[in-house]
């Protein structure tokens, strides 16, 4: 398309919606005026003299909010395109209502050097659609020992660092990695699980005992969370705990915050509500890391969101093929396809949380934690907008996913909150489930199922 088209296309007035923006403490009907991909104004009424170059988008019945950002996505490229490609992953993000995602580095090879970071960044940008923020590995080859080129990756576009998939093995490496970029704002993201429990196949508890399956106890997560937040304290770095699953870890987080550690944490839809009882019958599909834990643990994770200790939602989108999720348990890959259910499932798990808090946890707080643009509809911000229907019951049907990953514990469940609209830089990328961002949709033959 030509640049003049692009300019015109990025001039839009989003009319008639309830606009909820926690960054502005706003909850009112507004017209979002977008010019050249930027939020130009939030008007109480529709513009009296509509701009002839601007497209009017009727958003009646919707809630519009700052674009949702998923800080924890596995895009699987390079190395595992049978599970997901950049294209299918970003289409899934778009369908799920996310204007941006952060991509974890546990690819093959891992994103542990500036070239791979830049390639992912550029390849994603070429597809249009959701913004893709690469996360760099803390250690080379994610070996937990040798510090990677963090400064170079930051310059190439990495927004954060993590050895996600595992904890960074060496405390010394983690400590020195954090020190080496103490002057940069980039946070560290910790996957908390002690390596000595790596043979575990599920949560250690009543269910694992009954099945005779080796399990990993909550202390395996909590102990590494404590270790890593002490590194945060020692190095004054901002630190983020991925996918908190255990009540004990929440105690660690609470402690760290009282110590002034700049700590944040995320909750996934499955750790908010799914328990280890799904594994009864040895169903390998429900293997995930951290594992599904007890009902007490899921209640503690929900309570931590309600209390404002956990302030970020993440899908931990981890797509695999059907065959890769087959039994026996030890052969099954860990993780679920999450992008296209995260919004519905998270709202479903937390009916008592106020709407502005839910939206902040999906957008403003994520942007702040990752240090990326967005998270606000303040004039001057990029026009990244997520639209929701709050009362639009829908049933999860993995066959309709854009993601190649079709394994989800939410299959067949009915949710009421549904992503309705997704706008990136003023461009409409998804509407009513249909991915139609021009470049992304053009690359999606037969996939853009509405």
């Amino acid at each position: 398309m030509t640049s003049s088209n692009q300019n015109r296309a990025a001039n839009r007035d989003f009319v008639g919606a309830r606009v909820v923006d926690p960054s502005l403490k706003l909850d009112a009907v507004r017209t979002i005026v977008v010019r050249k991909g930027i939020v130009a104004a939030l008007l109480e009424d529709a513009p009296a003299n509509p701009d002839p170059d601007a497209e009017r988008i009727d958003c009646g019945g919707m809630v519009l909010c700052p674009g949702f950002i998923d800080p924890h996505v596995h895009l699987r490229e390079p190395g595992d395109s049978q599970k997901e490609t950049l294209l299918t992953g970003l289409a899934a993000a778009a369908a799920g209502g996310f204007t941006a995602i952060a991509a974890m580095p546990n690819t093959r090879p891992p994103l542990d050097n500036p070239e791979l970071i830049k390639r992912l960044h550029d390849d994603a940008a070429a597809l249009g659609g959701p913004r893709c923020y690469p996360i760099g590995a803390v250690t080379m080859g994610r070996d937990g020992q040798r510090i990677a080129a963090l400064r170079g990756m930051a310059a190439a576009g990495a927004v954060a660092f993590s050895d996600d998939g595992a904890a960074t093995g060496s405390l010394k490496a983690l400590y020195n990695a954090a020190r080496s970029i103490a002057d940069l704002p980039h946070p560290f993201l910790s996957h908390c699980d002690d390596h000595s429990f790596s043979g575990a196949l599920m949560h250690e508890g009543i269910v694992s005992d009954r099945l005779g399956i080796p399990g990993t106890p909550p202390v395996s997560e909590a102990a590494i969370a404590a270790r890593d937040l002490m590194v945060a304290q020692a190095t004054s770095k901002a630190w983020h705990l991925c996918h908190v699953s255990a009540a004990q870890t929440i105690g660690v987080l609470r402690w760290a915050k009282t110590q002034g550690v700049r700590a944040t944490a995320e909750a996934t839809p499955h750790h908010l509500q799914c328990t280890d009882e799904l594994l009864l019958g040895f169903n390998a599909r429900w293997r995930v890391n951290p594992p599904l834990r007890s009902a007490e643990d899921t209640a503690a994770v929900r309570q931590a969101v309600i209390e404002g200790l956990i302030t970020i939602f993440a899908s931990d989108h981890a797509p695999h093929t059907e065959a890769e999720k087959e039994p026996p348990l030890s052969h099954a890959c860990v993780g679920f396809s999450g992008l296209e259910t995260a919004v519905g499932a998270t709202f479903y798990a937390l009916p008592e949380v106020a709407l502005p808090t839910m939206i902040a946890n999906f957008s403003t707080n994520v942007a702040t934690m990752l240090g990326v643009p967005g998270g606000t509809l303040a004039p001057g911000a990029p026009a990244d907008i997520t639209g929701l229907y709050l009362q639009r019951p829908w049933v999860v049907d993995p066959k309709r996913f854009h993601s190649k990953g079709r394994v989800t514990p939410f299959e067949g469940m009915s949710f009421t909150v549904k992503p309705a609209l997704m706008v990136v830089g003023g461009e409409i990328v998804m509407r009513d489930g249909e991915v139609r961002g021009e470049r992304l949709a053009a690359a999606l033959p037969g996939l853009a199922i509405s």
Partner: protein
Amino acid sequence: MTKSKNLLDLDDADKTFIEALIARARQYKQGVPNENIRLRGRVVLGMFFETSTRTTTSFAVAAQRLGAAYIDFRTDGSSLAKGESLEDTMRTVRAIGADALVVRHSEAGFPHALARYFDGVVLNAGDGAHAHPTQGLLDAMTLIEEFGDLKGRRLVICGDIRHSRVARSSARAAWLLGAAVVLCGPPSLLPPVVPAWGFADLATELDPLLPATDALMLLRVQKERAQADELPPYEELARFYGLTRQRVDLLPPHAIIMHPGPVNRDVEVEGELMHHARSRIERQVENGVYVRMAVLERTLGSLSRDRVA
């Protein structure tokens, strides 16, 4: 498992199911006419991914006494080890003509995974720390032979409960038949809640239990499965949870001593006690053959002979 053609565990078994199998096993022990034609033409494949002496032999003898062929599927150099998928291997064994698979594997749930892809009978001969249903049945048979009714009887299972598939299956079978079950060991090797597995009591000290014990089952220390970062040294297990002459003297005179074997002499059981008058260790092995005959007959006997390969 009562409604299934397989025997994967005793988790869904009921009293009737267990009683019927034990009754049939006891008939076989007395002698059943023409037993050797009951499963004529059937092929039983032993798939032992973990070593076994008595279970594999016991199944082989049971199958052959019923007229079936028992063949060892060599798992060490098998196509599974070469990376063939479970589904493909199951197609192969089906094409070969196997009617039943007797499976042992170090992973809990492995036989359940095989059963998804095999339309014949899958019999679990031990999966990780999960289940060993024929052991549970043969232990129950040994108890029934000894006591008749198990109501009001107390079975104490002692040692590394956590890593024991025998404990899980034998405890359940005995409980279903009316026995009270106490699991005894250090807290790290016991289930996390009482009642354990829905029915069992827990204890950390053995000696106070002994005077009110009808059957004491010592467990094998699973040196091959447990690791030094999971278990106390086994000398310590032997000292606090092993069977010594002094402990035998604390048992009531009618109490019996059981062990699933093979025994680590002087670890779980002082060597000289192996053949003590109260020991039923050899009886357990003997009963294993009859129980497995009953299981093979029940599962294979009802399997259609014209499955499509």
